C-alpha cells in the first residue's frame, strides 16, 4: 500500500500545505496528514505517529456516524417525499 506513486497536487498561491515527511505529498491540514501517514506509510511510522493516526481515525468514526444519520434522514425524506407526491399526483 505504501510507496505507490502519489497523485499530482497543485497548491493555491496563498496557502501553505502540510507536507508528508515520507513521500512529500502535499496535504491541506494536520488531520489529513495524520490519516495519510497511517494509510500510506504505516510500517515506517514511529509509535507516536501510529497513536496519532489511530486517534484521528477513531475521531473520524464519530464524524462519519453523524454524517450517516444525516444521510439516513435524507434517504427517508427522499423516500417519503416521493411517496407522498406520487400518492397525490399519480392516481
Amino acid at each position, binding site marked *: 500500500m505504501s510507496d505507490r506513486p502519489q497523485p499530482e497536487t497543485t497548491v493555491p498561491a496563498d496557502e501553505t500545505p502540510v507536507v508528508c515527511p515520507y513521500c512529500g505529498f502535499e*496535504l491541506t491540514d494536520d488531520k489529513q496528514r495524520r490519516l495519510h501517514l497511517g*494509510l500510506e506509510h504505516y510500517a515506517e511510522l514511529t509509535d507516536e505517529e501510529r497513536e496519532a493516526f489511530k486517534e484521528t481515525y477513531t475521531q473520524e468514526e464519530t464524524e462519519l456516524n453523524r454524517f450517516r444519520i444525516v*444521510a439516513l434522514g435524507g*434517504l427517508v425524506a427522499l423516500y417519503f417525499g*416521493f411517496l407522498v407526491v406520487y400518492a397525490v399526483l399519480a392516481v
Partner: protein
Amino acid sequence: MDRRRLGLQAGVGLAGALAAITLLSEDVLAHAAGLRDAGATTVDVPTWLFLATGGGAVGASFLLASFVTDRVFIRSFHQWGGTLPSPGRIVSFITRLTGISLLLLTVYVGYAGPPTGFRNFAVVFVWVVWWGGYVASTYLVGNTWPTLNPFRTIADLLPTIDRVYPDRLGAWPSVAGLLALIWIEVVTPLADDPRLLASMILGYGAVTVAGAVVFGSEAWFGNVDPISHAFSFFGRFAPFERTAEGISFRLPGMALTDPDLVSGRDEVAFIVCLLYVTTFDGFVATWLWETFVVSVVGFGLPPLLVYFVAYIAGFGLFLGAFWWSLGLARRYGETYISQEELGRRFAPSLLAIAVGYHLAHNLAFVLGLLPAVAVVSAAPLSPPQQPPVLAGLPGWVSGLEMALVLGGHVVAVWVAHAAAYELLPGRLEAIKSQYGITLVMVGYTMISLWIVTTPIVEPPFISGGGP
C-alpha cells in the same frame, strides 16, 4: 470560491433545472419510448415527477454509497477476478478473416444492393448488428475490436513507414475524430442511404489504413482512431479483458477505478465527448431542439451553422460541468490533488453512464429489427420488399430501458465513490468530494431520461427532412 458563493452557484443551477423541468413538462406525459419510433408506451405520471424520480434515485444511490466507508471492503469488489488462458492463434485468424469478409460484403452490398435503407444489408448490418449489437458486446463481454477491426488487419499486412507519432497531440485527434464522425452521422442520411454509407466506410477505411501505415498501428489505433479508442474504453467496463497473461476477468465496471486507465486531460475530454455525442444525437430528435432551431433559423442563420455551433457549445457545456464538479471535489475533499488528476480518476465513472445509455438507446431498436436482420442477411442482394420487424415489444422493455439508464448512473456513483476512497485519506472527505459529481450526475440523469422518453421528431433541416 467561498462556501456562500458555492451555495449560490448550486442554488442557481438547481433553480434553473427545476424551471426547465416545469417548462418542459406542461401537461406532457412521459413517453417511455425506444429509439426512433420503436413502439411508444405512456407512463401515467407527469414528466417532471418522472424525471425527478430518476434524479432522486441517483441521489439516493450516493447517500447509500456513503454508508460504505471500509476501504478494504470497497477494494475487495474492485480486485476480485482471475485469469483465463489466451485463445489460440487460430481463433484470432478466424476473427480477422470474419472482420475482412464482413467489411467486403457490407461495402459490396451497399453499392450493389437495393437503394432503400432497411432493405439493404449494409445499413441493417452497420446500424443494427454492429452499432447496436456489437458495440454492446464490447462492454458486456469484452473488447474484441483490436482483432476484429478489418482496417487494422489490412494495415498490419502493409509495410509501415513508422513515422514517430507526435506525443504532444496525445489523444486529442480522437476527440476531434469522434466529434467529426458523429457530426457526419447526425447531418447526413447515413442511416437511410446505403450508397452513402458504403462510401463513408471506404473513406474512413482509407484514412484509417493510411494513418496506421504512416504512424504504425499501435500509435494510430491507440491515439487517433476514435472508434478503436471508444471501444477500448468500453472494454474497460467489460468483465473480460485481453492482457499479456491471457484473458483476465473482473466484475463488470470494477476495473474503472484502475489508476492508469485515463492518461491525461485529452482522454478525460474523450470520455466526456463519448457521453456527449450520444446525448446530442438524441437531443436533435426532440421537439425542444426543433422549436429552437426553427426559430433561430427564422432569423436568417444557415441551419448547418446553428447545428454546428450548438454541437460544439454543448460539448463545452459538458466539459465545463464536469470541470466544475472537480473543483467542488477539490474543495470539499480537503485536498490539493490537482483538478486534472481528479478528472483522470473520476472520468472513468462516466463510462458506466455511457454504457447504460447506449444499451437503453439500442435495446428496443435491435430487438425490433432482429427479424429484418435475419431475413436481409439471408438474401442480401434480393431481400423481401418489407423485411419483417417486431412491431409490438412487450411493455416491460421500455421499463428495462429506464432501469438501464438508472443502472449506469448507479454504477457510476459507486465507481466515483470507490475512486475517491483510493485517492483521499479522509473517509468523510471522500464522501464530501462527491457532492459536485453527484449533482452533475443527477442533472445528467434527468436530461437523458427526458431525451429517451420524449417523443421522437425528425431533426429539422438535415437528412432531407424539413420541419
